[in-house]
């Protein structure tokens, strides 16, 4: 019965315009900057086309601001229709408490299992075999962005991997460039470290440590090497007064810094500044060592509500979010990769195409938001922001504390 109804609903969603009733669905998210808002507008447009109405509840300031609001609304018994979370372990408890809707029926009707690529994305939405969220995009952290001009000025070739980059740092210093741009916010420090881990110790090590809580691995020689590399990165990043990640990106754009390790959202900054991939800047996925894409990203969750109209609208929204047209329109604006492999992104640029190829080849790994709870990520942030800002902290001390965090994670 239920499956049938959902199937009907889903099909009405696809044949846009024939919906019987217009339901207002409040959607909370934290996409408020220019490109993000344009991307959301695509989602809203697609949803409105089904005959329902997207009521926008944008709250700037990322998860730390939006999360208490979302949770309060749910606890207060007056939830929104849908909300954005990073898929992974953030919503675990809400699911366990039965506050979020099981969307398995929609997923089956739409055949998400077959179209979502890589499949691990859907795993992030799955608890006990049931699917609770609709993934919308992939944002990978595993990128090194380099300024071609900065290396030219320093008289060295643009590096093709991490070791070359480290070797070039003295030349960059002498040319008055900052070798590595790193903002002061904690999440940037931890992100850099995790990228180093994947590139230098390999994705398996990361998954073992974060996924299985393998403390032996965390204390082992592979990680020792990563911590030494992090110390190199620390030396390379000394001497800047920047906070925000986009200020760091701006240093690469203006050729005052050699490079930056940052997720694919940095690409938007280059685009706004009119820089051309391959000519003005280079991108090295996986630091040129392990060309990989991690499957971090955003997903929508749907709180349990009494109103059957809203429930129906939630089903429609979930189906709409993953439709090929929406995926293309949304991800082009957002600068992220689509969650399904069967769509065509001809408009993508050089770096984005690199990403798509890696994705096609199946070289993916789960993201830290999937592997770790936010609590663990927060502790890692604290550790690494301290490490990268305090040169007196030795790699050995940092590794010892790292092992402690891994030990206590759950």
């Amino acid at each position: 019965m239920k499956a049938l109804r959902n199937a009907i609903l889903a099909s009405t969603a696809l044949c846009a315009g024939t919906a019987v009733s217009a339901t207002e669905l409040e959607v909370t998210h934290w996409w408020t900057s220019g490109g993000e808002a344009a991307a959301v507008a695509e989602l809203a447009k697609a949803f409105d086309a089904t005959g329902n109405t997207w009521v926008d509840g944008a709250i700037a300031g990322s998860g730390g601001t939006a999360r208490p609001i979302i949770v309060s609304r749910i606890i207060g018994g007056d939830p929104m229709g849908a909300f954005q979370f990073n898929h992974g372990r953030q919503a675990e408890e809400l699911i366990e408490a039965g506050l979020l809707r099981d969307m398995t029926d929609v997923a089956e009707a739409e055949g998400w299992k077959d179209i979502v690529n890589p499949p691990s994305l859907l795993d992030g939405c799955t608890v006990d075999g049931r699917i609770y969220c609709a993934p919308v995009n992939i944002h990978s952290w595993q990128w090194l962005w380099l300024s071609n001009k900065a290396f030219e000025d320093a008289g060295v070739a643009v590096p093709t991997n991490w070791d070359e980059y480290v070797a070039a740092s003295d030349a960059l210093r002498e040319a008055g460039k900052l070798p590595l741009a790193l903002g002061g916010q904690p999440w940037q420090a931890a992100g850099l470290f995790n990228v180093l881990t994947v590139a230098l110790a390999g994705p398996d090590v990361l998954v073992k440590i974060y996924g299985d809580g393998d403390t032996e691995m965390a204390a082992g020689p592979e990680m020792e090497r990563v911590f030494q590399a992090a110390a190199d990165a620390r030396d390379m990043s000394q001497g800047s007064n920047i906070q925000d990640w986009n200020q760091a990106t701006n240093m690469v754009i203006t050729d005052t810094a050699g490079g930056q390790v940052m997720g694919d959202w940095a690409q938007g900054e280059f685009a706004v500044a009119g820089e051309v991939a391959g000519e003005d800047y280079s991108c090295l996925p996986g630091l040129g060592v392990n060309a990989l894409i991690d499957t971090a990203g955003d997903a929508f969750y749907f709180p349990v509500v009494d109103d059957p109209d809203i429930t129906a609208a939630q089903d429609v929204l979930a189906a709409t979010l993953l439709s090929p047209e929406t995926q293309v329109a949304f991800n082009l604006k957002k600068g992220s990769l689509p969650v399904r492999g069967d769509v065509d992104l001809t408009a993508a640029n050089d770096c984005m195409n690199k990403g798509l190829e890696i994705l096609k080849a199946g070289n993916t790994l789960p993201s830290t938001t999937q592997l770790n709870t936010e609590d663990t990520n927060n502790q890692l942030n604290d550790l690494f922001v301290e490490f990268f800002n305090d040169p007196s902290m030795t790699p050995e001390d940092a590794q010892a504390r790292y092992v402690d965090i891994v030990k206590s994670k759950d």
Partner: protein
Amino acid sequence: MATDRPLSLFRNMAAKIAAIPMILTAMVVFVGGTFWTITYSFTNSKLLPRANFVGFDQYERLWNSSRWLVSIENLMIYGICSLILSFVIGFLLAALLDQKIRYEDAFRTILLYPFALSFIVTGLVWQWILNPDFGIQFIVRSMGWESFAFDPLYNPKIVIFGVLIAGLWQGTGLIMVLMLAGLRGIDQEIWKASRVDGIPAWKTYVFIVIPMMRPVFITTLVIVASGIVRLYDLIVAQTGGGPGLASEVPAKYVYDYMFQGQNLGQGFAASTMMLLAVAVVIIPWAMLEFGGKKRG
């Protein structure tokens, strides 16, 4: 009949009815909320409060966290400096404005306006002004003094004083207004008397007026002190806790762990420690203030 002593419950009935909102707030929200917080600080609640008790685990982790220790140290330094400077500057400004000057409205509004602006932007503007690359240091250097160095926000040793500059700029206006209200409540005869006696103005302030303003000072103290304990927005806007962990404060620890880190238990443990510290100060004060002594 008024011959018997009425039930004490019904004496001052109007006053008690009027105080019901206060009593409810005090008992339900503040006492209830505090006990709720303390209770859940012994659980491993993550995103949602759940009664899964784990003993003192959260506290153990808290006191092993270097970030928490740095936060406490920062709060101490900031608190002491901010308390002293707020009072001194606020009172001096109020005394200046109380000289029956012209344009008092304009001066008062100028001194008070920073209070109207949100912390987010206060932090941003001061972040600019103190930025060595285009703020004060840049201006002074471009005027020829090349070795001039002033970059409090980027020096972990003094970053908390950089926050203090912005905090005082934002908050002293309110202290000034409070003090001014207090001064306006002082009998003008005091001034006449002290002038007749030939007492210098500063002595009149220190020995006569300030002691008379004790209630205002207590109010101000609570406002300033509670603002210090809850210091959060300004740090987030100005330094984000950095460089490194150099300007972290306890309230930020609480917030970050409750919502960013999705570890309510840890946040509750941290706030329980904060509340405990406050209680250690307030309870003896209340006993001193209310113990036995009454007006009448």
